[in-house]
């Protein structure tokens, strides 16, 4: 069972692609129509938090299952 989940607020995302650069598990992909980031592989998230630390638009939220180790 995965311990983390990722969501991207497409209203805030400006399609810079920095989350795709930093993610070690290839969770994000830029969608074709407007280049915005989509967490297509959210099950692979390991909770390293690099995506929301670098996201300049405050668009990414990483969720942790209560009680899981970060």
């Amino acid at each position, binding site marked *: *069972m*995965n311990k983390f*989940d990722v*969501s991207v607020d497409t*209203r*805030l995302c*400006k*399609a*810079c*692609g*920095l989350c795709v*650069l930093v993610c070690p598990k290839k969770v994000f992909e830029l969608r074709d129509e407007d280049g915005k980031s989509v*967490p297509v592989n*959210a*099950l692979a998230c390991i*909770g390293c*938090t*690099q995506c*929301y*630390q*670098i*996201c*300049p*638009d*405050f668009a990414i*939220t*990483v*969720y*942790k*299952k*209560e009680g899981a180790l*970060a």
Partner: protein
Amino acid sequence: MVNENDAEASFVPMSSAPDKWLRKEHLPHIWCPGCGIGTILRQVIEQFTKLGWKNDDVVFVTGIGCTGRASGYVNAQTLHTIHGRALPTATGIKMARPDMHVVAMLGDGDGVGIGGNHFIHAAKRNIGVTAIVVNNRIYGMTGGQVSPTTPQGSKSTTTPYGNVEPSMDVCKLALGAGATFVARVHTANPVYVGQIIGRALQHDGFAVVEVLSQCPTYFGRFNGMPDPVQMLQWFKENTFMAKSPEDEKEGKIPIGVFKDDKTTPELSKSYRNLWEA
């Protein structure tokens, strides 16, 4: 959201900083896609959360420019002052209310361009203000003009054949003027930016953190790096950890903490002591 059916209530966000410290109704912000100011602001609010400060105890002062717009998004006591005058305003607030945490976020033009003299005097006085200098090496908001920190040879709107002037080093200026905490970091490593800003916020005295930031729209586009990803890779390849801004290594930019002096008295405290004596 893959796990919507999987007992969603048990998942909690890993950081509560945006809910507590951002005026979310003003988002999305005005900065360009890939601009580093958002990353730096994120690290600042993460450190506010980590330190457990209250929203009403923090004064967030900015000047004019792209960085100046940051005060509109922070849920604290914020002040958007005139160009270059963020530090004199912050100095006044700290002298009147030494109990508050005063943070000034400056751009390179705001800090060492038009407000250069105020920067030197705030450093000389050792006033207890944290100055976060976002150095994107260009005047971004007005259309990409050359700034005091534009590297020699770099192109901008006003230097289409390359900048002929040597650039200004913010950290050397701060050290020479007497700031008691001086550090330089870059946005390609945001967690390190956060750690250093956290140390600067806790420092008693004038703390300068120069954050090298990316401006893909103007600096990047004129200098062959139109993608923010290329600019971050440039930072990674062209910086090295050093103990002094004088250190040299193959023409790269030194980063790290250059000074952390806890012995020099802070101005508002020395003033109170004089007043009470």
